[in-house]
């Protein structure tokens, strides 16, 4: 279950609250709030990394883990 809730990390020190991530999120998982972008609908996030590519400040990190499928290794 825990894996379902892994979300992109937002660095509040780099974020300028421009809102591009919230506008550009194809799943509408992010909203702009008084404290900046927040994953208000985390269950919508598919980890597509669009927010990371849109962020002009490099404040969003979508870290990918590279693993073998258990049956393919």
């Amino acid at each position, binding site marked *: 279950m825990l894996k379902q809730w*892994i979300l992109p990390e937002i660095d509040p020190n780099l974020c300028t609250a421009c809102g591009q991530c919230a506008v550009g999120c194809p799943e509408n998982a992010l909203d702009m709030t008084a404290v900046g972008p927040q994953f208000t609908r985390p269950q919508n996030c598919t980890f597509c*990394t669009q927010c990371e590519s849109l962020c002009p400040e*490099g404040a969003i990190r979508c*870290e990918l883990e590279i*693993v073998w499928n258990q049956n393919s290794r």
Partner: protein
Amino acid sequence: MLELRQIDLLSGLSQPTLSQLEQAVILRAFAPEEIIQIGSDPCDRVCFIAEGEVGIFRLSSDGREQVLVRLREGQGFNTVPPLQPDSLNQASARTYTNTHLYVLSKADYLHFLKTFPDFSFAILQDFAGRLSHLTNLVENLSLHSVRGRLARFLLEQADNDQLTRRWTQDEIAAHLGTVRDMVGRALREFMDAGYISKDRNQLILLDREGLVFESES
């Protein structure tokens, strides 16, 4: 955090040499994403990673970052520049995480090389490893396409339990000497071909034969 004797390069040193070295080094702390050094600046120290991760990189004229190597605790850097006539940093270095470094001044490094044969031999062994790594990097960049380099990178990461497994697409691009869009496109092509799949934050390798075939392109 590793003790000095646990640093890969120094683990084979005799006790007298290690004792002298422990007195010579200074432990320094760095925050995540902190620049440790800039390429082409004068090199005045050798560093060994007690804790954390460090990226060694160069910038192209258009600002693109080429990550030469990503170092983890137990590894070191700047062992080469102090021996060169101009003594300039060959690359820039930046932390990825909270990092502690054992720092040895250039003057002390040269003194240890001249005075302690076991230290000199350990440094020579390290040079041999670096030469091999750079030879592979040159081959990778000059002979293989982005798809080939990406396939090789994915296999390398998934096969080696010692390597850091979490990368952003920008970091992968920098490591492969390309840009994020190219990495994203190649990943999608690999998914379409059934070589890999994506499950949220996991890139799952499915087809070794297919990826090995791609790695030769």
